[in-house]
C-alpha cells in the first residue's frame, strides 16, 4: 500500500546509510586488522629497534572502507537532521524528540536527545578523530584504525534496528511509528492517509523543555567529543601491545590524552553549569549517578596521562599505564551502560529509557573489558624488566603514587554509583544472592562522597603543588626549596581565608590551604621557572585551573549559605527547613536581604515570579532595592513542571533563588473556596484528627423524624443529623449539626459549615458498620492566599570554579599544541 505523505524513500536511505556505516566499519576493522598478519608485524621492532614498515597489502582496502563508513555516518546524520527540520512526524524519533515550534538552535539538541541520536553523535566524533589517525598516525595507522573500526562496528550495531533470529539488534532512528512492534496490525496503520487523518501526527512531542537551555546545545556534543577522545589512546595502547611495542605508543598518544582531559573536563562542567542554571537542586554538582559516570573516566584519564610521562621519560610503569588507559575506555562504555540500561531508574532523575538493548550493551562492554584484560595478560612479558626502585625524591615515584590515589578515588565513586548494579548481581533477587537485603544508595550522598573525596582532594592538591618541582631520577635540595614561597604563602593566606570565611570543619581548612598551595605553586612554577612561557606552560596552567576548580567547589559548597530560613519552630530535633513563605506584596527578611514578591506572569512555557531584593538598613528595616530576580516554573505537561532558578552574579558571590512551591491551580479551582478534601468514617463519640490541626468529634446522632412503611418495615423517610464538634489546637471550638435525609431509596447528603474555623462537612452516607457513617471534610482556602515558597542560597566565590574550568581547558589545549605544533626534535642520526 502507498501511504500518503510519508517519506519512505528517506527512511530507506537512512537505513541504507546505517548499513553502509556498519559495513564500512566492518571493512575498516577487518582490512586494517589483517595487516597484523604481515610478516613480523607482531614481533616488536626490528633488530635495529625501528618500527617495522607499516605498509601491508590491506592498507588501501582499510582506508577505502573507512571512507565508506564516513559517508554512511554523514548520511545518517544529514537524513536525521533533515527529517527533524522538515517535521517528518511519521518517523518515531522525530515525533518523540521534536515539534514544529522548536527553535532552530534546539534542532541539534533534538538530534541527540534520544539514545539512538546520542550513539550517532558519539560515532560521528569517533569518525572525525579517526581521520586524524588515517592522516597522521604513520606507522600506527594500521593498528589504531583496526581498533577504531572495531569500536565503530559495535557502536553502529546499536542503531541497526534489525532482528536476527528474533533478537533485536540495535534501535534505528529511521523507524516509522506505524512500524513499531506495538503498533503492528493496529487498525489505523491500514489507513492510507493516516498522517492527515490522525491529529496526533500533525505535531511531534517536542524536545523535553528541561533540555531547552543553551548549555544543552553545547554540553552533549562536548561531552561526547571527550568520550570519543578516549578511544584514540585506547587504540594506541591496544595496537602497541599487540605489536609488542608496549611503551612506544605513549608518545603519539599523549596529545590525545590531554585533548581528552580538556574536552571531557569542560564537557562535564558544562553539564554542571546547566544543572546550576536549569535545575533547582541547588548547586552545580549533585553526585548524581549520571554525573559520576562521566567523572570517573575523566579521573582515570588524568591518571593515565600522568603515568604516560613516566613511560615516555623513564621507560618504566608500562603495565600500570596501559591498564589505566584501557580502564578509562572501558569506564566510558560502562558509563554508557549505566545511563542507558535503565538500571539507575530508582536512583537517578536523568537516565535514559530502556530500549531493550541491555544485552547488546553488556556485550559491547564485556568485549572491550575482557579483550583488554586478555591482551594485558598475554603480552605482559613483552614489558622491559626493571628491578630498581625509584628514588623517594624522584618525580616518577610520586607520579605513580598520585595516579594510584586518583584510581582509588575513581574506584570509590564507581562503586557507590554501581550500587543498583551490585543489587542486580549479588542482591537478594540477583544472580548470586549474597546480600540479605537490597543495598540502597547512601541516604546523604554529599556526606558520603565527601567523606572520602575530600581527603583524596587534599592529597591530590598536595601532589599537584609539589610533584612539578620534582625532577626525574632524584631531586636536588635546591629544587625542593623552590616550593617554600608558595607553601608559606598558602599557609598564611589559607589560614587567613579560613578565618575570614569562618570555616569550622578542619578538613575544609586543610583543603583550602593545600588547594591554595597547588594554585600558588603552579603559578610560581610557570612564572619563575618557565618564565611565563606559553608553549611549555600548559601543564602548569591546567594544574592552576584545576586547583581553582577545587577551591571554587570547596568555598562555594562549604560556605553555601541558605538565606531563606523558615522561621517556624517545629521541634528541637526536627529543624525548620530552608523554605520561606512570602505572601504577595509582603516583604520578608532573608538576612542580609529583604525580599518582596511583586507578582507573577506567564511567558510561553514559563510562569515567572518577580522577586525584588532589598538591602538592610542599620535599624534592620528594608533598605534600598539592590536587584530583581525572576525565578520561574516551567510548565511541562510531559515531564512534570520544573522549578527553575534565577541567579544574581557578583564577582565574589552568586545569589541563587528558586520558587520551591507555588499554587499552580487554575483560577476556577482557586475560586471554589474549599480545598483539601478528606474523608473519614465516624461513629458516636469517636474523634478524628483532621487537617493536621483540628480534632473532630461526633457528639451525638440526632434522629428528628423516622417513618416506616407499615407493611414491610422498610424505612420510608428519615431526617437525621450528626452533631460535630471541631476543636482547634489553639483551643477554639465550634459545634454544628450536619443533616442527612432519606426518602425511600433516595438519600440526600447534607452539608454544614464551621463558619468560624473555616471547615465544611458533608454527611456523605451511612456506613456498612452499624452506627457509623462517612463524612467528607474540606477546609476553606484562606482568603488572599497568594503566596510562594522561596529557597535562596548564597554561593561565595563560585566564579573561581568557572575560571578554573576555562584555565584547565586552555592549559590542556597548550599541552596538546606543544606536542603537535611544536618543532619536532631533530631526527637521530
Amino acid at each position, binding site marked *: 500500500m502507498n501511504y500518503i505523505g510519508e517519506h519512505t524513500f528517506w527512511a530507506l536511505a537512512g537505513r541504507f546509510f546505517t548499513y553502509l556505516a556498519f559495513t564500512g566499519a566492518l571493512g575498516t576493522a577487518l582490512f586494517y586488522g589483517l595487516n597484523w598478519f604481515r610478516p613480523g608485524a607482531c614481533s616488536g621492532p626490528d633488530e635495529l629497534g625501528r618500527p617495522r614498515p607499516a605498509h601491508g597489502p590491506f592498507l588501501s582496502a582499510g582506508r577505502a572502507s573507512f571512507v565508506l563508513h564516513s559517508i554512511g555516518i554523514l548520511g545518517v546524520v544529514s537524513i536525521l537532521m533533515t527529517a527533524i527540520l522538515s517535521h517528518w512526524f511519521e518517523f518515531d524519533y522525530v515525533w*518523540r524528540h521534536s515539534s514544529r515550534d522548536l527553535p532552530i538552535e534546539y534542532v541539534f539538541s533534538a538530534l541527540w536527545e534520544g539514545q539512538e541520536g546520542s550513539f550517532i553523535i558519539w560515532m560521528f566524533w569517533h569518525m572525525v578523530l579517526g581521520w586524524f589517525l588515517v592522516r597522521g598516525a604513520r606507522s600506527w595507522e594500521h593498528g589504531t584504525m583496526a581498533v577504531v573500526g572495531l569500536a565503530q562496528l559495535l557502536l553502529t550495531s546499536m542503531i541497526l534496528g534489525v532482528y536476527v533470529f528474533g533478537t533485536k539488534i540495535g534501535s534505528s532512528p529511521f523507524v516509522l511509528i506505524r512500524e513499531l512492534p506495538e503498533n503492528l496490525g*493496529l*487498525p*489505523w496503520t491500514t*489507513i492510507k492517509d493516516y498522517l492527515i*487523518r*490522525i491529529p*496526533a501526527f500533525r505535531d511531534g*512531542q517536542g524536545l523535553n523543555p528541561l533540555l531547552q537551555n543553551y548549555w544543552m546545545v553545547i554540553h552533549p556534543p562536548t561531552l561526547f567529543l571527550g568520550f570519543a577522545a578516549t578511544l584514540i589512546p585506547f587504540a594506541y595502547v591496544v595496537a602497541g601491545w599487540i605489536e609488542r611495542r608496549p611503551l612506544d605508543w605513549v608518545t603519539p598518544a599523549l596529545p590525545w590524552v590531554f585533548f581528552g582531559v580538556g574536552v571531557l573536563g569542560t564537557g562535564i562542567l558544562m553539564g554542571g553549569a546547566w544543572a546550576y542554571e536549569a535545575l533547582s537542586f541547588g548547586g552545580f554538582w549533585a553526585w548524581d549517578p549520571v554525573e559520576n559516570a562521566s567523572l570517573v573516566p575523566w579521573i582515570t584519564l588524568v591518571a593515565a596521562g600522568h603515568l604516560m610521562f613516566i613511560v615516555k621519560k623513564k621507560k618504566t610503569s608500562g603495565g600500570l599505564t596501559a591498564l589505566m588507559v584501557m580502564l578509562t575506555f572501558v569506564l566510558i562504555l560502562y558509563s554508557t551502560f549505566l545511563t542507558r540500561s535503565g538500571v539507575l*531508574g*530508582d*536512583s537517578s532523575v536523568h537516565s535514559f529509557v530502556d530500549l531493550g538493548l541491555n544485552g547488546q550493551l553488556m556485550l559491547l562492554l564485556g568485549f572491550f573489558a575482557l579483550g583488554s584484560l586478555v591482551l594485558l595478560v598475554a603480552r605482559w612479558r613483552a614489558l622491559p624488566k626493571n*628491578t630498581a*626502585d*625509584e628514588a623517594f625524591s624522584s618525580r616518577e615515584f610520586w607520579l605513580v603514587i598520585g595516579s*594510584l590515589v586518583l*584510581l*582509588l578515588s575513581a*574506584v*570509590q565513586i564507581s*562503586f*557507590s554509583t554501581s*550500587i543498583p548494579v551490585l543489587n542486580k548481581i549479588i542482591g537478594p533477587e540477583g544472580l548470586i544472592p549474597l546480600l540479605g*537485603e*537490597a*543495598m*540502597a*544508595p*547512601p*541516604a*546523604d550522598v554529599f*556526606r*558520603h562522597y565527601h*567523606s*572520602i573525596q575530600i581527603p583524596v582532594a587534599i592529597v591530590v592538591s598536595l601532589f599537584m603543588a609539589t610533584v612539578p618541582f620534582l625532577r626525574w631520577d632524584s631531586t636536588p635540595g635546591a629544587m625542593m626549596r623552590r616550593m617554600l614561597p608558595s607553601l608559606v604563602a598558602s599557609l598564611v593566606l589559607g589560614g587567613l581565608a579560613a578565618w575570614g570565611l569562618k570555616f569550622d570543619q578542619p578538613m575544609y581548612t586543610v583543603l583550602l590551604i593545600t588547594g591554595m598551595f597547588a594554585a600558588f605553586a603552579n603559578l610560581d612554577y610557570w612564572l619563575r621557572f618557565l618564565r611565563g612561557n606559553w608553549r611549555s606552560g600548559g601543564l602548569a596552567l591546567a594544574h592552576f585551573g584545576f586547583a581553582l576548580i577545587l577551591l571554587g567547589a570547596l568555598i562555594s559548597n562549604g560556605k553555601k549559605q541558605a538565606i531563606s530560613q*523558615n522561621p*517556624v519552630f*517545629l521541634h528541637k530535633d*526536627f529543624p*525548620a*527547613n530552608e*523554605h520561606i*513563605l512570602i505572601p504577595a506584596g509582603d516583604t520578608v527578611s532573608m538576612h542580609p536581604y529583604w525580599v518582596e514578591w511583586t507578582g507573577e506572569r506567564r511567558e510561553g512555557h514559563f510562569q515567572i515570579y518577580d522577586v525584588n531584593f532589598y538591602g538592610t538598613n542599620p535599624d534592620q528595616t528594608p533598605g534600598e532595592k539592590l536587584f530583581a530576580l525572576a525565578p520561574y*516554573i516551567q510548565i511541562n*505537561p*510531559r*515531564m*512534570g*513542571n520544573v*522549578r527553575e532558578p534565577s541567579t544574581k552574579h557578583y564577582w565574589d558571590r552568586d545569589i541563587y533563588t528558586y520558587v*520551591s*512551591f507555588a499554587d*499552580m491551580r487554575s483560577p476556577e479551582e482557586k475560586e471554589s473556596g474549599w480545598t*483539601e*478534601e*478528606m*474523608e473519614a468514617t465516624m461513629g458516636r463519640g469517636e474523634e478524628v484528627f483532621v487537617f*493536621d490541626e483540628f480534632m473532630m468529634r461526633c457528639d451525638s446522632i440526632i434522629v428528628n423524624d423516622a417513618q416506616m412503611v407499615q407493611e414491610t418495615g422498610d424505612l420510608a423517610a428519615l431526617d437525621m443529623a450528626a452533631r460535630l464538634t471541631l476543636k482547634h489546637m489553639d483551643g477554639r471550638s465550634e459545634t454544628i449539626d450536619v443533616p442527612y435525609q432519606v426518602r425511600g431509596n433516595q438519600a440526600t447528603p447534607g452539608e454544614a459549615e464551621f463558619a468560624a474555623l473555616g471547615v465544611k462537612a458533608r454527611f456523605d452516607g451511612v456506613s456498612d458498620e452499624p452506627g457509623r457513617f462517612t463524612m467528607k471534610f474540606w477546609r476553606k482556602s484562606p482568603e488572599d492566599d497568594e*503566596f510562594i*515558597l522561596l529557597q535562596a542560597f548564597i554561593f561565595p566565590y563560585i566564579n573561581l570554579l568557572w575560571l578554573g574550568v576555562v584555565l584547565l581547558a586552555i592549559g590542556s589545549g597548550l599541552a596538546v599544541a606543544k606536542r603537535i605544533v611544536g618543532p619536532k626534535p631533530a631526527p637521530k642520526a
Partner: protein
Amino acid sequence: MKRNHIIALVVIALLVGALMVTIQDASTYATFEMAEKKSPETVTVVGQLDLDQPITFNAQTSMLRFTAVDKDGERSVVYFNQPKPTDFERSEEITLTGLSSGDTAFFAQDILMKCPSKYADEAKLSAE
C-alpha cells in the same frame, strides 16, 4: 621491587577501607515494618502514594503529610519537611529515604518520584 609491594599493599588497604566506608554508608531498601524495627536508622522505602488518604501541605511550615503504601501493602503516614513536589499526585512510584519515628509515622528526608510519561498515553493512537 620491595617498595612497590609495600605501595601495592597500602593501596589495597586504602581501597578496602574506602569500600567498607561505602558499604557502611549505603542505606538499605526496606518496608515500613523493617523501617520501624531499624529506627532510627535511615532506610529507603519504595512504594506508592495512597490517593484515598488526604495529602495535606502546610505552607507556613512547608510540611507535607501524606500516606504511602509500601511493596508489602503496608500503609504509613509520611511527613516530609519540604515543599510539595510538583505533580506529586501523578507519581506512579515514590522512593522515600528517611527513618521511622517508631510506630506512628515515617519521616522522609528525600523523595524521588517516578512519573508516568505522557508519551505512553499519547502513543496509544486511535483512528477515531
